[in-house]
């Protein structure tokens, strides 16, 4: 009896082969096996014969939407920077997408980075991705040589041990609090659709920080981000960060210094998160790729919470409504305005 992931892998290969063979798409963005335990490699498959390399498992933590704009450009016929856009339909690209990734594709469409008609979404209901860091912490001090996945357990093998751990206990925090595991865009359905999960409070971790005093929050922020080495992996893994020149790379004006100074690092993380306001789908790629294990997702999650509470919008859920920061309502909340009647700061 093949496991759920083996079935999904097989289905992905069949569908990808079909899409490439009948020339519906020019490329498929998916995952191939990684060289280390609990890793997979994102890959762009361009030939039907290569589809056998595609895999699907619980370690697909990177967000494939991140590669979509670039791959779409790469399949267009070559042209100079001033040449007009070719008329007629351009080649399409297929991409695997779980709930959060598909929402990122929606945001990319809303922001005109991706054309809907050029994308074939291979929709996979997510069962939650496993955090490599959690597994490694569970087996701290022991080297993990191989991990095999069953439906609900992970079998972890080392040089002198074989242990079975519950899969869900190792699933990433953002996946555990996820309420929309099923893609919002579906062109090719892989496996069974995942039902929306009931989560009484997806923002529990954020509220635990909010409950602290200002000084305690500053202490948390300073400590959490003190280990940052400014490698920008979080930025590079993010499907929202497609600016040709990022604000951290600007030299005139230099918004943020390039040093490891605590202020520069803090400003980088505050602004990076802020630029994702109303666009972040909490896919957790930033946190998963951080070599230092920083929980920078707390900042974007806080923004997601405010956007939902203040403006009632969840990024990528409504393809037809504009992004929260590109629109407004005349009666948006404004208690924070210092001279408004009933403002929070009034008389403070």
């Amino acid at each position, binding site marked *: 009896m093949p496991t759920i992931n083996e079935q999904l892998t097989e289905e992905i290969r069949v569908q990808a082969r079909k899409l490439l063979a009948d020339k519906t798409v020019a490329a498929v963005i998916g995952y191939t096996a990684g060289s280390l335990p609990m890793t997979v490699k994102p890959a762009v498959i361009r030939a039907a014969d290569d589809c056998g390399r595609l895999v699907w498992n619980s370690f697909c933590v990177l967000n494939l939407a991140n590669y979509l704009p670039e791959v779409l450009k790469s399949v267009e016929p070559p042209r100079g920077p001033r040449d007009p856009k070719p008329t007629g339909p351009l080649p399409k690209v297929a991409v695997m997408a779980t709930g959060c990734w598909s929402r990122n594709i929606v945001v990319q469409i809303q922001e005109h980075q991706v054309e809907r008609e050029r994308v074939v979404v291979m929709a996979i209901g997510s069962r939650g991705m496993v955090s490599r860091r959690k597994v490694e912490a569970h087996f701290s001090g022991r080297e993990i040589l191989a991990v095999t996945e069953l439906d609900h357990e992970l079998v972890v093998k080392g040089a002198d041990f074989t242990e079975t751990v519950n899969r869900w206990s190792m699933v990433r925090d953002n996946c555990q609090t996820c309420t929309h595991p099923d893609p919002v865009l579906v062109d090719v359905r892989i496996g069974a659709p995942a039902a929306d999960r009931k989560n009484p409070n997806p923002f529990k971790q954020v509220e635990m920080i909010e409950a602290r005093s200002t000084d305690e929050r500053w202490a948390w922020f300073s400590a959490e981000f003190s280990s940052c080495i400014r490698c920008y992996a979080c930025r590079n893994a993010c499907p929202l960060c497609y600016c040709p020149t990022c604000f951290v790379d600007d030299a005139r*004006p230099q918004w*943020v210094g390039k040093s490891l100074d605590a202020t520069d690092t803090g400003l980088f993380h505050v602004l990076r998160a802020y630029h994702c306001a109303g666009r972040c789908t909490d896919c957790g790629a930033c946190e998963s790729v951080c070599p230092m294990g920083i929980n920078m997702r707390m900042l974007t999650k806080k923004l997601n919470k405010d956007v939902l509470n203040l403006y009632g919008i969840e990024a990528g859920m409504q393809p037809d409504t504009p992004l929260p920061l590109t629109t407004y309502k005349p009666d948006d909340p404004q208690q924070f305005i210092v001279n408004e009647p009933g403002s929070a700061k009034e008389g403070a």
Partner: protein
Amino acid sequence: MTNQTSETSKTSQTNWEPKIIAFLCNWCSYAGADLAGVSRFQYPPNIRIVRVPCSGRVSANILLSALKSGADGVLVSGCHPGDCHYISGNYFARRRFALLNNLLDFVGIEPGRVHFSWVSASEGEQFAEVVKKVTDKVKTLGPATRLVKSIDTVQAA
């Protein structure tokens, strides 16, 4: 070097006065500030005004740059909602400021460092009121230390 000397004088002197950067929109709040001056309303001399075309021009980058460069407080002021010279600039700004305000609070920036207000061109007296309120608040908080890049911390790093 000048930054360092002002840093030491900031903490050593008991009669410390805050430096507050005020981003005022050209069409309403800047004119409101002008009216306050012409009408000779008294307000604390702690603000340094930066004139911007619209409150919608003030991005998080700009605002945090002011804090980074050592401002003890920041005030952003624009036209009242509905009165924007560019029709809707302040509406967009309001959404961005609401989120930024909450995020700064979340990471532990003291509430009261960063202020937002609406002041029209005819509200000279109200402008003086806002500046008084903001200056008082920043004075009680004392010199800014969070997200401030001082030469001391750079040398130590």
